[in-house]
């Protein structure tokens, strides 16, 4: 086969070059202290180690270049790799840094304007799962102290706590988590606006239906669960799992 580009164009394409965008965590460095950077990065990773393992990472040098002259990119990449990240770019550096990066096989990302507000120092984006929850969910926890009777419906924009029983034929719904410190005989739906991290906690599960972010189980599926024992329900991948507390 001839490697003539003209011929290549007329043959059946084996590849496509497309435009796409990905969300990649950005490591914003404020001070050029390699030891501190390594330690503090280690601390961040420790909070959710599996989440960050082999994660791509882009290093933002914008603040650093204002205060530091000599930046050893090779050392920085080494630290990043040590903590199981894979560096895939730098941005905000001066021409000499960009050249050094390219030489190390790391591309330079354009320093485009972000519409996000100024990132807090050393904040890694996207934030780990736990932090995201409090940003998105309006913190309006609804607390119900009386029994929820058959036919009643309760809705909470945040979390929902019920300190009594939930009768058969009633529905309780929350955009966040649901806690029932009593017997659940009705329906409980958590994460109703698409929050798959919501959980349901229940002292006594005898529910007609439980659902988290649309994934549900009905009373028949809950036959194995002994009543009277506290349980928690959560989503694992697309499976609704139940665990005794």
């Amino acid at each position: 086969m001839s490697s003539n580009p003209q011929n290549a164009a007329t043959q059946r394409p084996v590849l496509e070059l497309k435009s796409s965008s990905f969300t990649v965590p950005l490591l914003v460095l404020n001070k050029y202290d390699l030891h501190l950077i390594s330690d503090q990065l280690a601390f961040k990773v420790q909070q959710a180690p599996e989440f960050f393992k082999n994660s791509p990472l882009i290093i933002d040098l914008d603040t650093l270049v204002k205060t530091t002259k000599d930046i050893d990119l090779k050392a920085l990449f080494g630290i990043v790799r040590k903590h199981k990240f894979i560096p895939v770019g730098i941005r905000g550096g001066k021409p000499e840094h960009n050249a050094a990066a390219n030489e190390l096989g790391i591309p330079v990302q354009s320093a485009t304007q972000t519409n996000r507000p100024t990132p807090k120092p050393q904040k890694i984006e996207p934030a780990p799962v736990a932090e995201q929850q409090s940003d998105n969910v309006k913190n309006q926890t609804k607390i119900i102290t009386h029994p929820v009777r058959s036919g009643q419906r309760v809705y909470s924009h945040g979390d929902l706590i019920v300190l009594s029983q939930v009768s058969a034929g009633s529905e309780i719904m929350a955009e966040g988590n649901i806690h029932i410190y009593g017997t659940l005989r009705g329906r409980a739906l958590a994460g109703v606006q698409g929050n798959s991290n919501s959980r349901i906690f229940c002292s006594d599960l005898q529910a007609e239906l439980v659902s988290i972010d649309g994934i549900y189980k009905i009373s028949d599926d809950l036959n194995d669960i002994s009543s009277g024992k506290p349980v928690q329900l959560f989503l694992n991948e697309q499976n609704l799992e139940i665990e005794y507390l």
Partner: protein
Amino acid sequence: MARIIVVTSGKGGVGKTTTSAAIAMGLAKRGHKTAVIDFDVGLRNLDLIMGCERRVVYDFINVINEEASLNQALIKDKRCNQLYVLPASQTRDKDALTLEGVGKVLDELSKTFKYIVCDSPAGIEKGAHLAMYYADDAFVVTNPEVASVRDSDRMLGILSSKSRRAEQNKDPIKEYLLLSRYSPKRVNMGEMLSVDDVQEILSLHLLGVIPESQSVLNASNAGTPVILDEQSDAGKAYQDIVARYLGEDVPHRFINEEKKGIFSKLFGSK
């Protein structure tokens, strides 16, 4: 100011009218001027149970429509001069009842009466809603049977949200559980829900248990509220209930199976 009691259930046929008649008679016999009103327009029964069906001239709808005065419609009971019955209409339907109309009648009754017992129809529609709207106390009559318990639970939800007290954010209606047609024998055999089972599902204050009794049918045939049958267990149960409602501390009877004495075994029970 009168105390308005609604006798309700959700489910039909559990003993609301029997209970309304018995409670009203019980309160009146203790000297309190009591009115009992039939809210079941088109399917009236209270007049039969009270034994005044042959003296009905005007009814509840007539009074609401101002076709008759309250005094013309109220029927005084022949056995107790403190008890008055306001029958429902048999020819009209429940659309003739209005919230304001009912409120006006209750206001007028409140001026002279101490207790007003509202006998609710079955269901959760307009008739039942109007019967419970102005209530201060609710006697939720329940049979120890799953369908009745579920319906009572539904009714409790409605009481706590659609009554005047709920809408005006006042103290909520006081809810009482009356467990009727109870058979301790069947409970012991595991066929029937026990008091504890029902309490677990409803979480409600138990005012009393009324045993399944043949005397109830006899009483309704005779047009006498069963509470007047002092020999019958149902009659005694209702007397206990009236006493408890008025604040007396009466231990619960009829929950456990009675041990039949030798004479009962030889000569049969009532």
